[in-house]
């Protein structure tokens, strides 16, 4: 199928770019590792408050931390696209009969793979800190992180295609990623929040992802949170991807 053929080509091209300077794959893991090493010990002292059972802090914290990585680790991929627009590479692709979705799919899939690699590394680092995981739950949750990564990457590419210049891109994405991460109970459990904050968090799709991955890590497969998380994030990923694709097609107007 043409879309698969073209997506594969685009994926390989983009992955080659990333692997040419692999150090950035590690640089963007710095933030979560800092949280793990310098912030989590603070949480340990809080053990016992609602939403944070004593002695299990790390099990609650890590799934959310990986959601944080999925949000911020992919939020700025749009910069590479602006570079490609500026050098004419995207126009070069667009004059060929390449499938339009493949141009974006090849990028977001690369971003998702890099993200999964980072998530696995962070999880491995967390094991000495006492993390206990259900391995099947963990593998399933990787799928959810990938979907979050695809959502954020599509958002980043969509704005890159609209702005076509770097300056407004980072502020825009920070403005979106920061509140949604605070509102999803990643750093501290939302059980501690006042009611109004809890209410707002219910319309934040990413808080569903945090609940779902906590349930998955714990191996509570019967929890409704898991299905909710997949449905909410799955639908969101598709919508945001289509929006990004629309921005790409609008370049011709």
């Amino acid at each position: 199928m043409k879309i698969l053929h073209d997506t594969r080509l685009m994926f390989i091209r983009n992955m080659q770019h990333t692997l040419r300077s692999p150090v950035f794959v590690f640089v963007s893991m710095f933030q979560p590792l800092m949280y793990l090493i310098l912030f989590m010990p603070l949480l340990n002292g809080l053990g016992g408050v609602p939403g944070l059972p004593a002695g299990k802090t790390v099990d609650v914290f890590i799934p959310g931390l990986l959601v944080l990585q999925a949000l911020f680790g992919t939020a700025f991929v749009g910069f590479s696209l602006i570079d490609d627009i500026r050098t004419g590479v995207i126009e070069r692709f667009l004059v060929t009969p390449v499938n339009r979705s493949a141009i974006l799919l090849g990028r977001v899939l690369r971003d998702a793979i890099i993200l999964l690699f980072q998530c696995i590394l962070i999880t491995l680092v967390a094991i000495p800190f006492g993390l206990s995981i259900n391995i099947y739950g963990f593998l399933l949750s990787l799928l959810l992180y990938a979907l979050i990564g695809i959502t954020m990457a599509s958002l980043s590419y969509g704005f890159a295609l609209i702005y076509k210049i770097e300056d407004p891109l980072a502020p825009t994405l920070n403005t979106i990623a920061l509140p949604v991460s605070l509102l999803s109970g990643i750093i501290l459990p939302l059980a501690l929040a006042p009611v109004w904050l809890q209410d707002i968090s219910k319309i934040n799709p990413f808080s569903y992802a945090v609940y779902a991955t906590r349930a998955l890590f714990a191996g509570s497969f019967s929890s409704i949170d898991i299905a909710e998380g997949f449905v909410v994030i799955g639908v969101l990923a598709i919508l945001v991807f289509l929006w990004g694709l629309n921005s790409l097609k609008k370049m011709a107007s």
Partner: protein
Amino acid sequence: MIETKGLRKTFISKGRGGNKKVEAVRGIDLTVRRGEIFGFLGPNGAGKSTTQKMLSTLLCPTGGEAKVLGYDLAEQQEQIRQNVGCVSQAGGADLSSTGIENLVLMAQLYGVDALTAKKYASEFVERLQMSSFIERPAQSYSGGQKRRLDIALGMIHHPQLLLLDEPTAGLDPQSRAYLWGEIKKLKADGVTIFLTTQYMDEADKLCDTIAIIDNGNIVVTGTPEELKSSVGGDTIVFSFQSEETARKAETFLTEKVQGARIQTKDNTVRLTIKDGEKMMPELLRSLDAQNLEAQSVMLSRPSLDDVFLKYTGRSLREDERK
């Protein structure tokens, strides 16, 4: 191979104080015949690139219609993309990849398998003599090498029609001459070429048909010979000691030679007349008799510069200086 009717593009650009309309292309009709090199000549901002982008499906026309290779521009974009080659002004090579990676990927995007793609790539490496640098990342290429890669990328799939946007802009004379040779070879191979340029000499040397575009409109179309003879004569350029002398000479010459076109700029007077060769000695003698001694005289057969001047009222060079 290309036929447009009233093709038009209006950009709405958001700026301070509301939206501004930019009429980049104002309804152009052009016909490019099979096997020819069609020159699309015009100054900065004339609408050349915009036209080429519409023809290569990168931009949606605001109005009008076009057939490219017989395919309808609005309906059959897939077929146009598959069969037309395009080299944009910016080039579009992926600078951090090597030339060969660029070429292979591009061929694959046109649907050929990896093996054939490699075959196509090495064919063009040989044809455009790129083997000494093609394995290096493209960001290390010289201007001429980069341009060769750009052109190879545009024709990697052996299209019947190639759109080239200012292929020799900014190149040294040697690289330009080399590319001109390659473009002529393509024509000999039966490829039809739509060539955008700001250079008169380029259009003159390469093209079978030329359309001059200015400010979004095509002002004239014809073969270089037709256009030049339409200017109606040869040009004699007299240079004088001072601007004042030049102005006096202009007044004198205007009376003396009826029906000639005369233009004075600084200390030179340009006179366009029929049979310039025969007229020149006599004109010099009578200028001398008036004590308007010319310091130098130059006779030139009509050039496309003169054509441009005639149809737009401006010199192409003047425009470039702005």
